[in-house]
């Protein structure tokens, strides 16, 4: 397992040394934050490299970090982590790609930082499975994926104006935001 991780990091450092923003290992899981503009080339490389062979994209999601670690006292455990994470929180969103290599039985997490008004390139051209996952992110967070073949909402009606998993959306919903059809 560790060999694959080392091989992956070595190859990424060789090919995309300027693309990697930060690396993190927490609970034996590897998280790599990459720069937005390198997303497609890094993903294509991960998929096509015969040794790494990250052929399966298992999930895409986003995290809204607005208000993260604010107004709350630090707890007594793992004091070192907040400082590390705090540096990464200069954008509102982070898109999280859960990529799996069937050949090596190895999973990594790719992350891309994104501001509220920014768009991000779709990886559905690299892995077909990204199609629905990205639609779900679009529906729940309002993040648009550039070049996506079918950018429609996943769960909610097209007319719904809000994105429920954004932190400002109240848990009980917004009254009157979704009227029933008249007939």
């Amino acid at each position, binding site marked *: 397992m560790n060999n694959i991780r080392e091989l992956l990091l070595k190859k990424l450092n060789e090919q995309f040394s300027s693309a990697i923003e930060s690396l993190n290992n927490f*609970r034996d*899981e590897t998280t790599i934050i990459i720069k937005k503009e390198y997303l497609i080339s890094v993903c294509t490389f991960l998929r096509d490299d015969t040794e790494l062979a990250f052929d399966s994209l298992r999930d895409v999601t986003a995290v809204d970090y607005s208000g993260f670690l604010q107004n709350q006292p630090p707890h007594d455990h793992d004091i070192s982590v*907040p400082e590390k994470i705090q540096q990464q929180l200069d954008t509102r969103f982070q898109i999280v790609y859960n990529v799996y290599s069937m050949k090596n039985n190895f999973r990594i997490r790719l992350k891309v930082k994104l501001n509220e008004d920014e768009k991000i390139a779709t990886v559905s051209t690299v892995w077909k499975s990204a199609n629905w996952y990205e639609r779900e992110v679009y529906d729940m967070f309002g993040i648009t994926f550039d070049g996506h073949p079918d950018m429609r909402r996943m769960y909610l009606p097209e007319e719904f104006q809000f994105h429920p*998993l954004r932190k400002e959306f109240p848990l009980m919903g917004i009254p009157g935001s979704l009227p029933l059809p008249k007939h």
Partner: protein
Amino acid sequence: MRKVHFTEPSERIIQALNDQDTSFTIDDPLEHTMVLNMGPQHPATHGVLRLLVRLDGETVISCIPDLGYLHRGYEKLGENCSYHEFITHTDRLDYLSPLANNVAYTLAVEKLARIEVTKRVQFIRVICAEMARLASHFVFLGTMCMDVGALTILLWSFREREKLQDIMDVLTGVRFTNSFARIGGVANDMSDEVKKMISDYVEQFPEKIYECEKLVLSNRIFIDRCEGVGYISKEDAISMGATGPILRGSGIAHDLRRDHPYLVYNELDFDIPAFNEGDVLARFYVRLNEMKESIKILRQCLEKIPQGNVKPPAPKKVLPDKEKIYSKMEELINDFMLINFGINPPIGEVYNAIEGSKGELGFYIVSDGDGTPWRLKIRSPSFCNLQVMPQMIKGNMISDIVAIIGSVDPVMGEADK
């Protein structure tokens, strides 16, 4: 608040349907195509799945699944529940195998909070997960056969499932939404009575499954309706993110129980059934053989399960026993703190997945050190497997759609979350 007005709600979905790639030849094409709505209340759509299909005669040339009729916002709810509170919600995701969902969620939280569970708990959880797999596959067996017109098997498989529910009733106290796993353990220890019940069940199972097998697999109509229908290739299955019996039905013996062993699966001996055909029948066989493997696992668990405690000594993270709360001050305080303020895991993020009955069931949790998760994402296998369905349906006859939906075995509770 500005009112939203409904314009043409189906315009974009019809556009998406028309935009789909339809590059294959039909023997006897018609001049016109027709758009047909299947569901959301069609009896064969397993709940509230709606399919938009474009037909040329009786051949489906493109298809779009439309979700959202059940959307309950579980991920938003997860961000506002404490880690303990959310266990009951996981039951409602894949409601055909709630025990497996509990186990998947608690394993993710334990990974985040770094809680080690005892060996006995690990065995009990494996027993729970395998019983959940059996219960879920029995529903598949019944409904899939019913979809292609064999009704008797539905009654038989539900009879067998009821026996499992009886065991779960004695084990967990609840028949359906069990909420049995706890962070750091399970709600109650497994009694000898339950052990005896499982052992009796395991003994009578081969004969019962053989009856079911004999009934459907010797039936020419059943085989003809399943063989070669709903084909999905190995490459497409991987690329489109399919997991579980769909991936294994396409010839890839990928199973997280073996590839990423969790609990005590690496101490148990079992096979991963896989078939190369990639059609409805292959997926049927995969599940049928998986049930037999689950019985094998249950049998080994009953032999190997050790005696011991079902809760680790971690009072700041694990709920104390109920009887101790009523008699001891320390336990009362711990219970109060855990219920009111939560377990407060360290800041960080984890993803943990198990092999659920339908595929990879994973929970991604981002923690800000508070009592509730900052973000809780559920990687539900039904949602991901449904994405493969248009590829399977395309080029088949309209009557095959029900068999294909049956073979995907979606549970809309977790697809719509």
